[in-house]
């Protein structure tokens, strides 16, 4: 299994670097329309052909990968930080604060966050720029996604606070804030890291779902979700199998993320 993990990690790094260099590697920009060549099959100039507006699919895939693959970790990072702060502090302080925080966490967990996501995204004004829509989409994911991790982090924080080394530190007169930063937080790192890795594929899939529903990143900026919309054309996919490439890439990347994860389960 170690081999599998190494291969997966290498693949992710490769795709990540390629997408970072989208500006250099893409033969065209994502919005550039080759009006004389709509729905063209793959050729040496257009590796994956063009879509019905004449845009080069390969370039759009590169840019779309950049959006989806690089912003999901950013959202995951912000949700992990939120979870660390809320869960960590709650578990450390204990008592009523912990109870209140866990109650709020439960509330967040009960909210149908896909419903909320759908709602907020749909209420964006028509003239919002694609960049802003991207920030808002992934921003919402980051803001709403902390609840799953917070419970686990709170429990870890509580057990770290009750542990012997924390007791020793307190017995030697360490101030609470310093105790939290120096002794508790480092012990939360494994749980936080696990949550970070779990969140990334979840957010990628969430964005993809929003995209297919037409509620994702605004045109003309591509993302994996919006690229998948082309699969709705059932008549075409039989004749144009290259339309599946974005889906295959998404599945491959998410599978790799799962392989790289430590053996983690759903937070209960």
């Amino acid at each position, binding site marked *: 299994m170690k081999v599998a993990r190494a291969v997966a990690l290498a693949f992710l790094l490769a795709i990540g670097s390629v997408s970072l260099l989208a500006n250099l590697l893409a033969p065209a920009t994502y919005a550039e329309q080759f009006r004389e060549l709509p729905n063209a099959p793959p050729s040496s100039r257009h590796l994956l052909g063009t879509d019905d507006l004449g845009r080069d699919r390969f370039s759009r895939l590169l840019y779309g990968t950049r959006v989806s693959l690089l912003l999901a970790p950013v959202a995951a990072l912000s949700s992990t930080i939120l979870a660390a702060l809320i869960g960590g502090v709650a578990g450390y302080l204990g008592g009523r604060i912990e109870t209140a925080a866990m109650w709020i966490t439960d509330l967040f967990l009960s909210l149908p966050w896909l419903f909320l996501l759908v709602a907020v995204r749909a209420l964006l004004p028509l003239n*919002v720029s694609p960049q802003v829509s991207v920030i808002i989409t992934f921003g919402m994911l980051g803001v709403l996604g902390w609840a799953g991790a917070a419970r686990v982090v709170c429990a870890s924080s509580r057990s770290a606070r009750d542990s012997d080394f924390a007791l020793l530190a307190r017995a030697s007169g360490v101030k609470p804030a310093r105790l939290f930063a120096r002794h508790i937080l480092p012990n939360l790192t494994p749980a936080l890291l696990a949550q970070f890795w779990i969140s990334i594929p979840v957010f990628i899939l969430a964005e993809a779902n929003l995209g297919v*529903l037409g509620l994702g990143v605004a045109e003309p900026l591509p993302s994996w979700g919006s690229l998948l919309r082309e699969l709705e054309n059932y008549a075409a996919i039989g004749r144009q199998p290259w339309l599946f490439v974005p889906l295959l890439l998404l599945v491959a990347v998410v599978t790799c993320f799962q392989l790289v994860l430590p053996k983690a389960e759903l937070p209960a």
Partner: protein
Amino acid sequence: MHRRFRAVFPDAQLKGAHVLKRASKHLVKLVTTALLGGLLGATLVRFAPGFDVDVRELDPRLSSLSVEELRQQRRADDNLTHFYGRYILNLVHGDLGFSHSLNQPARKLFAQRLPVTLREIGVGLLLGWLLGLGLATSVVVLRAWPVDLLASGLSATLLSIPAAVFALTFVFLRAPADLAIALIVMPKIFSYSRNLLRRSYSLPHVLTARSKGLSEIRVFLWHVVPTSGPQLLALLGISVSVAFSATIPVEALCDLPGIGQLAWQAALGRDLIVLVNVTVLITLMTVAANTVSDLLAHSLTREA
């Protein structure tokens, strides 16, 4: 029969009171959660950028009078306290408001669409659980690494496919949408329960049971399952959440007249009333599911 009952629950009266107390605590939690959830959702929606602009105002076909009416309606919604107040009052009276986008009372929409969604989720969850738990059990009991590899590979792949793509596939294959929900739920149940069962199998009391010479079936049913029970029940609550989230893409793309499709259409039509009510409704159901599974789990664990 009564004697048997007393034998199993020697402190029946005490236990009954305990369960009631717990249930009522959960009920309070449920109601407050639902209300706050709805208000929170409404707040988020209200303060999202773009709330003030209504696409219909830009429609050149509407007369200036209609546009003014629309603007007035929006202004009424603008005042948040006014909105919340009106909302709660209406809720108490059973009036769930009127949907601008679909031109029907929200209550009627829910009444029509809820059964569709509930049936779909019911079938989807049942199938998903049967498949997921069944596969996990076979993998753990058989202990053959090819089976494990195959099942894990399948599960990982299914988990990597967005729900929307499942929906598209099922439309393409003209297959029932319940199956889509089942396939979305199944891999999560499989991986979680497989890990859970594996851990339960390596517990000392299972080893003791084996050393007594008991058959595999007996070891599984009487020693592995009871220890895994509570956590599997917790998973039940989570799987309900997952299933509900999946209804949006599945119903939207498979064209099923359920709550998920309603939410999607309301989002596209920027219908605040419907969105808030859908949020509250789904939150209520999810919290109820979690409550049931939590209570069941607690009744199964033996407290000294």
